C-alpha cells in the first residue's frame, strides 16, 4: 500500500496574495516565477492571480501541497437555458478552447452580456462580474436575475452583498478584492479595455480566479497595454467588428459627414488660440520629436507659456465642440427626423450636452443625472415619450439603449473607441431598418483629422479564433 506523502508546502490567501508556509526544508520556492521571499512575514509570497500557475508548477515538480486558499463556495442556483446566436456560440467555444481564460471582442449591441451569462452557466462555478459603472451594475443584476435562480451578490452603489454569483463595479472590486479574491472561480470583466494600463489592475491581480472572460468592443491597440491584458485576463480568442455583423445580426448603417464652417468671429478666436498653442507645441516637438501628447501636457504644465498654450488649446476645442453652424444644423436634423426616428445626440463634453438640452429641449443623459431618473428616462425613450437624448459619455459604453435610428455626433473627445461605441448604439437590428449617423465636423479645425481617424475603427476585421 503506497504511503501518502506529507505536504511540502501550505498555500494560504493573504490580502490578495498567496503565502507559501510550512515549507519542506528541501524545497526552495524562489525558483518559481513570481514567487518572492517576504522577510516581513518570514514566508514566500506571490500575487493571487498566479494561484493556478503555482499549483501547476508544484504539481509538475511532484511536490505535494496543501491548498487552503479557496474559501468554501456557497451553493449555486440554477440557470435557465440560454439561446445563443451562431457567432456568440462560436465566441463561447473559442473561450472554452482558450482554457476559459480569454477576451472576446464583439461590437456594441451584439449581445456580449448574453455571451457572459452562457459562459457562467457553462462554467457552473462561482463568478464575479466586474462592470465599469453603477448603471451597468443595475443592468447586469437585471440580466442575471432573468436567467439565474439564486441569490445574486452586489458590490457597489452602496451595496455590500456577497453571493456565489456577484456583480461589482470596478471601483468596489479594487477596494474589496483583498477580501473577495479567494471566493470566485470565474471573473467576467465587462469593458475589459479599462484594464491593462495600471489603473486598478490590482483588482484582477488580487483574485485567484483561474477562469476569466474579458468582454470589449474596442480592445486596446497599444502593445504594452494589450500584453498586460493578456497576462491579467487572457488573449483575444474571438473578434468581430461592427463591419462584420452590420446587415446581418446588426442593422446596416450609413454615415454622413457634414463639414461646417466657423463664423468669422469663431474663426478669429479659434486661430488666435491655436496660434498660441502651436507656437509652444512646435517648440516642444523640435526638442522631443517622439514624445506623446501626455509628455507634452506634463512638460507644458510646468511653465507659464506651457500652461497658457494648454488653456488656449482647451478653449479652441471647446469652441469647435458646439459652434453656431452645429447649432443650426442640429436644429435642421432634429426637425427632419422628429416624426419617424428616435435620435441620440452625442457631444464632446457635458457642457455642450446641457447647451444642446437647453436650446433644443432634448433630455440630457449624463453622469450628473441620478440613477432613478436615468432609468425613467430610458423607459420613456423606449416607449416613445421622449424622442431624443443627448449625452457626452454615459451613453458610450455598455448601457442598453432602446432601439434608436439616428445618431448625431456633434463632437467627440476620445477617438476611435468612442466612435465605435457610439455607432454601436444604433445597430440593434429591426426588419427593414437602416440606421443613420451624422457627423458634424468643423471645417479647417483639428476636428477634421480626428473625424478621419475615428472612422477607421468601423472597418470589418474578420473573426480570429485560437
Amino acid at each position, binding site marked *: 500500500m503506497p504511503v501518502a506523502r506529507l505536504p511540502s508546502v501550505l498555500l494560504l490567501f*493573504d*490580502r*490578495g*496574495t498567496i503565502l507559501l508556509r510550512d515549507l519542506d526544508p528541501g524545497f526552495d520556492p524562489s525558483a518559481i516565477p513570481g514567487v*518572492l521571499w*517576504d522577510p*516581513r*512575514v*518570514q514566508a514566500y*509570497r506571490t*500575487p493571487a492571480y498566479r494561484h493556478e500557475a503555482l499549483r501547476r508548477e508544484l504539481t509538475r515538480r511532484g511536490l505535494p501541497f496543501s491548498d487552503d486558499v479557496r474559501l468554501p463556495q456557497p451553493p449555486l442556483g440554477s440557470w435557465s437555458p440560454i439561446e445563443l446566436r451562431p457567432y456568440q456560440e462560436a465566441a463561447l467555444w473559442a473561450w472554452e478552447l482558450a482554457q476559459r481564460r480569454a477576451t472576446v471582442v464583439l461590437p456594441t449591441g451584439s449581445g456580449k452580456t448574453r455571451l457572459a451569462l452562457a459562459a457562467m452557466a457553462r462554467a457552473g462555478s462561482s463568478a464575479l462580474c466586474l462592470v465599469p459603472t453603477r448603471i451597468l451594475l443595475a443592468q447586469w443584476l437585471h440580466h442575471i436575475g432573468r436567467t439565474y435562480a439564486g441569490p445574486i451578490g452586489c458590490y457597489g452603489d452602496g451595496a455590500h452583498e456577497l453571493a456565489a454569483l456577484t456583480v461589482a463595479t470596478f471601483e468596489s472590486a*479594487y*477596494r474589496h*478584492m*483583498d477580501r473577495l479574491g479567494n471566493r470566485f472561480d470565474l471573473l467576467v470583466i465587462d469593458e475589459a479595455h479599462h484594464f491593462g494600463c495600471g*489603473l*486598478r489592475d*490590482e483588482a484582477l*491581480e488580487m483574485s485567484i480566479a483561474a477562469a476569466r472572460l474579458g468582454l470589449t468592443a474596442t480592445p486596446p491597440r497599444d502593445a504594452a497595454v494589450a500584453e498586460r491584458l493578456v497576462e491579467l485576463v487572457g488573449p483575444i480568442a474571438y473578434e468581430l467588428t461592427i463591419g462584420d455583423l452590420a446587415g446581418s445580426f446588426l442593422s446596416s448603417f450609413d454615415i454622413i459627414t457634414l463639414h461646417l464652417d466657423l463664423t468669422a468671429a469663431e474663426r478669429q478666436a479659434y486661430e488666435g488660440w491655436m496660434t498660441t498653442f502651436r507656437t509652444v507645441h512646435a517648440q516642444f516637438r523640435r526638442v522631443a520629436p517622439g514624445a506623446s501628447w501626455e509628455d507634452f*501636457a*506634463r512638460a507644458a*504644465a510646468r511653465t*507659464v507659456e506651457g*500652461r497658457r498654450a494648454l*488653456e488656449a488649446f482647451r478653449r479652441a476645442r471647446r469652441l469647435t465642440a458646439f459652434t453656431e453652424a452645429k447649432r443650426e444644423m442640429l436644429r435642421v436634423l432634429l*426637425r427632419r427626423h*422628429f*416624426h419617424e426616428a428616435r435620435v441620440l445626440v452625442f457631444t464632446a463634453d457635458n*457642457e455642450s450636452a*446641457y447647451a444642446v*438640452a*437647453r*436650446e*433644443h*429641449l*432634448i*433630455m440630457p443623459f449624463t453622469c*450628473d443625472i*441620478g440613477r432613478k*431618473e436615468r432609468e*425613467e428616462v430610458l423607459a*420613456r425613450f423606449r416607449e*416613445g*415619450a*421622449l*424622442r*431624443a437624448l443627448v449625452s457626452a459619455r454615459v451613453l458610450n459604453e455598455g448601457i442598453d439603449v432602446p432601439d434608436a435610428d439616428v445618431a448625431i455626433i456633434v463632437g467627440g473627445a476620445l477617438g476611435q473607441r468612442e466612435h465605435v461605441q457610439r455607432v454601436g448604439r444604433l445597430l440593434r437590428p429591426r426588419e427593414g431598418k437602416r440606421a443613420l449617423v451624422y457627423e458634424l465636423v468643423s471645417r479647417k479645425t483639428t476636428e477634421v483629422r480626428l473625424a478621419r481617424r475615428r472612422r477607421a475603427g468601423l472597418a470589418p476585421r474578420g473573426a480570429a479564433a485560437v
Partner: protein
Amino acid sequence: MLPEALLPCSIHGNVVLPHFLGEHDHPWLRVLLEEYGRFVGRRQRELDERLRAPLPCASPPAKRRIAIHVLARHWGTRRIATIPPRRVRAAVFGEAARAYAERAAVVASVAGTLGVTVTELTEALFADLPGERLVAAPAEVLSPGELALRTNLAIGQGLLFRSTAVLIDMEGNARAVVRHAKLRGLICAILPREGERRAALEISGPYALFRRTLVYGRALSEILPLLAWCHRFRLQADCAVRGQQLTLRLASGDPIFPGKAPRLYDSKLEERFARDFGRVAPDWDVVREPEPVQAGATLIFPDFALRHRGDGRRWLVEIVGFWTRDYVERKLALLRVAGLSNLVLCIDESRNCADTALPSSSRIILFRRRLDATAVLRLIEQEPQAPG
C-alpha cells in the same frame, strides 16, 4: 487622490521635496478665500470659470491649483428651485417630444401648466446639477493659515499615495497608527528603539514586494493625519514620482493639518484605572500606550506602562476585553515567546465568551466592571521584577 501633475514638489538627487505652503503664501490664500466668498450665492460653474484664470495677485500656479482642490472639498453648494428640477425636466422634455413646436412655445406651455413663470422654469431645469448649484459658505470659513495646513496635508498625502512602504520613527500614538494599518490590510513590523514611548514601524502593503498599488498607497497616505498627533515622528517613504523612485522625508514640525484628535483613553474603564492608580501609587508613573512589543509575528500593545520613579522598576498592563480560555492561553504563550514576564493581564470575569475557566497564572488579575488599582499595585510590589 491628487493627480501627480498637481503636486508641488522638486527633486534633489534621489529625494523628493514637497513644497509646503507657509506664511509667505498667506496673502494670495487670503485673496483666494475672498474670491470664494465673492461667489457665495452664485453658480458653481461661474466660480469654476473664474478659478481657471489667475488671481489678481501673484500666486504659484501649482500651489494655487491644489489649494483650490482642497477648498472645493471644504465648501458646499445649495440648490434653489421653486419646483423640483426632476419634475421640470420630465414635463419640459416630455412636452417637447409630444409634437414639434418652437422652444419658446414649449417652455411657455409647461410653465403655465406648472404654475410658474418662464424664468422660474428655465432656472429650475438644471438647478440640481453640480455646475448649476449655488456656492454656499461652509459653517466654519478657513483662515489662510488653516487652508495652508490643509493644502500641505493634501500634498503630503498625495506623495505618500505614490509610495509602497513607509518607515516611521515615532513617539506616542503608535497604537492609532497600527490600528489603522491593520484595518486597511497593511503589514506592520516593529524595529527596536530605545525610549519609553518610542516605536519604529515599517508599514507596507502585501504587494510592496511586487509593485505599487493604489489600494495600499491610499491606505499609507491615510496615516499622515494620525502622525500629526504623535509627540514626535520622522517618516521616510519610497515614492514613485515623475517616473523615478524617490525618498520622501516628513517629520513633526512640518506644517501639516492634523486629523481628528485621537481619544486619550479607549474606554472609561481605562481612564478610571489611570486615575485610581495615580492616587494609590504616588511613587509610580502611569504611561498611557507605551511602545508596542514584538512577539513573534504579532505586535502586543500594552495599555499602560507603570514605572517606579525611585528604582526604575517597570511593568506593563494590558486590559483584556471579551475572552475565551483559548485566547488567554495563546496570549500567555505569546508573552512567553516575547520574554515579557513583566506584563500583567487584567481580565474582566464577566466577559468570558465560552464559559470556560481561566488558565492559572500569577500575572493575571481578575476584575468585574472596575479594575482595582490597589490589586495591581499589590501584584507588582510583591512579584520579583523581571527584565522587560
